């Protein structure tokens, strides 16, 4: 019962702050609302017996990535968004149509699927979320994806440096 109460609060907080992320005008406020979604999802990860993923969610996502966003927003300053009424505004109705269509499909699929154990209590889980289990899984079975992520990070770092260098040269090598 307690698990259901925690799930209800965390899910409601995640949905409300997600709505705020896509509706608030100022970039700063939307970013702070994103922190709310990320922390609610971290609570859900703890409920799902994934404490390590929850910790990484708080440290890397709510810590590093959101702080990077806030740095860039502070650097660019709060700029007014361009006036409405140009090209993209006309297509907003199609965006709504696509999202509503997808929502209907999702509800139909969730209501009719017969995945085993989909509506029952969860089975007893073993040790699936501890740092030890995750480390063993990474080293034993997923060593190639693990190395691939390090390559992706390296390429992203090089790309960011190149972007910054070209931008500096274009404004007179300041």
């Amino acid at each position: 019962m307690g698990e259901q109460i925690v799930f209800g609060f965390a899910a409601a907080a995640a949905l409300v702050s997600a709505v705020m992320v896509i509706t608030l005008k100022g970039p700063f406020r939307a970013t702070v609302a994103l922190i709310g979604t990320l922390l609610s999802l971290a609570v859900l990860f703890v409920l799902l017996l994934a404490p390590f993923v929850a910790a990484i969610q708080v440290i890397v996502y709510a810590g590093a990535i959101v702080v990077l966003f806030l740095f860039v927003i502070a650097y660019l300053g709060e700029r007014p968004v361009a006036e409405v009424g140009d090209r993209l505004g006309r297509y907003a109705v199609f965006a709504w149509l696509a999202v509503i269509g997808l929502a209907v499909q999702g509800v139909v699929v969730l209501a009719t699927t017969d995945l085993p154990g989909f509506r029952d209590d969860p089975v007893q889980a073993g040790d699936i979320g501890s740092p030890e289990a995750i480390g063993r899984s990474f080293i034993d079975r997923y060593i190639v994806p693990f190395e691939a992520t390090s390559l992706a990070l390296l390429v992203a770092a090089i790309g960011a440096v190149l972007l910054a260098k070209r931008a500096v040269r274009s404004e007179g090598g300041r």
Partner: protein
Amino acid sequence: MIGEAVNGVPLILYIGLSGALFLLGLLGVMIRRNPLLLLLAVELLLNSANLSLVAFSRYWNVTDGQIFALVVMVVAATEVVIGLGLVVAVFRQRLALDVDQMSTLKG
């Protein structure tokens, strides 16, 4: 422990919440025009995918979904680095921060 409660939360609720978050993120990507806020909506999409991965990992009692969620977080970090680098580069060209006006590559 919480996970061993008698009356747990069934998987369908987690998948429904993940779908709702995905729809919100998708709507944000399509109606926002500030590229910074567009990246925030993409983060919502990636997080909803992470929630389903971890939920399936719990209900099928395997670690693989959590591994995949961690990899998705790394990909999200690289995406943010490149995306914010592009936003700063556009800003330095003295252009408005509006995806509607970045149409130079349009055929």
